[in-house]
């Protein structure tokens, strides 16, 4: 049982000019199940961190009040459980049972009660393995389910879920949603942040919409909120049911072959694959986790050598033998995690790096950088450190860096992962435009909507 009250709440992280969240008035009663929505940058995660008591007093400036059962959240930590996005950094112990027991030990639960409570929590989330199972042997969805059991074992009155399925493939996400649905009872107050609203709706009975810097924009039962604000929310980037995205079909047929894999395989990671990618075509590579999709993307991108078979790319030869600078003019690779590809300290330098390595004249470099900043709505951030960008901004930048050297072929690994609707549509439009300009696009993806909206052809890998 827990009740949440926010009055004029605001928080500004130390060293930032803008408030992360401001002017929030909200009351959540015992046992209510609330979906918290809002575009990127509306402060949803900050609000959750405040409720979890994880905003240290000296790490920023507060405004208004936030209370859980009348207490400062920093003093009500025992009443609150949090599940974060990334399963890998939530598991502490190497065996599943030990991991669930970890929180109970911390809270000083008597030793005799620990194991019964561990078993109860594992059963509550429908965990299918024994206590001795190694956490490293679990899939992402199972890991996240285990992390949920670790949170529930502490019997929190308030459960906070911060996009718990954003890093998971569709099967893993379904697993976690199932576990949450199973675990909820009348005594648990739920606050859930989730981009994909349709998936989250069965879990909640109330929707609260935050506006960047503007407090609560809408509040009420899901049906009423979406009827009144659906279009505006979709426009702002929230995935609202009933607002489909129109497909972008190719204007012309495919052109010449840009890359060809002939029986290309990597021992232990990818079974022999045959595939060709053409100019003026979007090819989607799909398949279950563990089928080697990302490895195939690395082979096509000239970043890895096949252990058997061959990869040939235009103009000639095996791309993994090319010098890096030459590679960037022919094939651009965009990684799943944008931060892996950042190597400078400013957004503008990130874009200038490729053209400079090719020895392009300064004036031309400036023109390319300015053009890309404008095209991908990054001009305002030209001087920012790439590591401080939001998920959507970082994704746009990582695509822009690949485009800076104008390669004919673009290979992307899960480009739409965890993106809000607005960035998603921008990416689809951008890639459709590149295709119609005669570029080839290969995208490894789990995202069925993305395949439906953009792909001209689908290559499915089997495990």
């Amino acid at each position: 049982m827990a009740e949440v009250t926010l009055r004029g709440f605001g928080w500004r992280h130390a060293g930032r000019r803008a408030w992360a969240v401001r002017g929030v008035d909200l009351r959540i009663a015992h046992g209510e199940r609330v979906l918290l929505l809002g575009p990127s940058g509306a402060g949803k995660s900050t609000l959750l961190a405040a409720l979890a008591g994880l905003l240290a007093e000296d790490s920023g400036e507060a405004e208004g009040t936030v209370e859980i059962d009348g207490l400062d959240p920093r003093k009500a930590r025992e009443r609150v459980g949090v599940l974060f996005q990334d399963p890998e950094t939530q598991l502490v112990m190497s065996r599943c049972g030990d991991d669930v027991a970890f929180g109970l030990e911390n809270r000083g639960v008597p030793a005799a009660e620990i194991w019964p409570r561990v078993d109860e929590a594992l059963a509550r989330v429908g965990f299918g393995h024994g206590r001795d199972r190694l956490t490293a042997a679990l899939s992402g969805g199972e890991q996240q389910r285990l992390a949920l059991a670790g949170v529930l074992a502490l019997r929190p009155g308030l459960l906070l879920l911060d996009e718990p399925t954003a890093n998971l493939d569709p099967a893993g996400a379904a697993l976690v949603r199932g576990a949450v649905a199973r675990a909820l009872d009348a005594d648990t107050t739920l606050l859930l942040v989730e981009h994909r609203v349709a998936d989250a709706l069965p879990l909640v009975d109330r929707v609260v919409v935050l506006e960047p810097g503007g407090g609560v924009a809408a509040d009420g039962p899901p049906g009423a909120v979406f009827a009144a604000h659906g279009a505006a929310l979709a426009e702002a980037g929230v995935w609202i049911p009933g607002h489909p995205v129109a497909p972008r079909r190719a204007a012309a047929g495919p052109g010449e072959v840009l890359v060809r894999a002939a029986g290309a395989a990597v021992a232990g990671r990818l079974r022999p694959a045959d595939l060709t990618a053409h100019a003026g075509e979007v090819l989607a590579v799909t398949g279950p986790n563990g089928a080697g999709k990302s490895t195939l993307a690395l082979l096509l991108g000239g970043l890895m050598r096949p252990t058997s078979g061959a990869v040939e790319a235009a103009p000639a030869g095996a791309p993994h033998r090319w010098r890096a600078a030459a590679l960037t003019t022919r094939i651009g690779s965009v990684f799943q995690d944008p931060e892996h590809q950042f190597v400078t300290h400013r957004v503008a330098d990130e874009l200038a790096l490729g053209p400079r390595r090719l020895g392009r004249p300064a004036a031309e470099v400036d023109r390319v950088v300015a053009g890309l900043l404008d095209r991908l709505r990054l001009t305002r951030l030209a001087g920012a450190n790439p590591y401080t960008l939001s998920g959507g901004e970082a994704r746009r930048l990582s695509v822009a860096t690949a485009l800076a050297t104008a390669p004919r072929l673009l290979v992307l690994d899960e480009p739409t992962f965890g993106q809000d609707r607005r960035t998603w549509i921008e990416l689809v439009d951008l890639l459709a435009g590149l295709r119609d300009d005669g570029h080839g696009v290969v995208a490894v993806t789990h995202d069925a909507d993305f395949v439906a909206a953009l792909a001209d052809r689908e290559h499915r890998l089997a495990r």
Partner: protein
Amino acid sequence: MTALLPTFQASTAPLGRRNPVAKLAAAVLFTAPLIATLDPLTPAVALAVELAALPLFGLRPAELARRAWPLLVAAAGIVVTLVLFAAERTGALVVALGPFDVTTGVLWLALGMALRIVAIALPGVMVFATTDPTDLADALVQNARVPARFALGALAAFRLVPLLGQEWQLLAMARRARGLDAGRNPAARLRLFASTAFALLVGAIRRGTRLAVAMDARGFDAGTPRTVARRQRFTAADTALVVAAPALSAVIVAVSVVTGVFRPLIG
């Protein structure tokens, strides 16, 4: 690095299943006296004792060899280095390798050093090969009064170590995709290495921070006295092991002193 990888087999052998803290203390106490001597016979006897104890730890020689090979490489390296470069060249000439006079004195010294390295490090390898890291952390907290914040924090961080190898590979490929490669230029190679290492470090710190937040969210910083789900016991047999190890070692050193083979490190 095979010896450092977080693999182990939970042991049921008489010494293998002793309390991890007792095993660790025994290993340290057994090897400490061996540092004092330069002769090859003392560590050779100690090594023989260690190898004789292998079955008591439930370790097969092949398993030990798989884990301890870096140690043998290090020992071989020491022999080669000393044979070539040792300043003191006493004793009879065995063979002249070009400018290097290999004498009995040099060989004796090199052999002593190599055996010392192996004899001192091997017990550590034996302990870690038969100890579950979770049990070690538990025992450190419960039996050696190491703060839980340190022992369990280190244990959790340890779990992330295998990820670093994959991460390095990914970062290196991501740099190539950005047009960065070093070719044959050693300076460029060093710069690229440094920048990749820095990115790895930044990523590791971020991941570590996220893990720390998740741990604190589950009450790790609560300050209430922790209870333990897995009780580690320190029994009379564990005490006996901790007492017997240095006693055995002292006997070995005493015998080498009495028989006159002992060559003190200092003096």
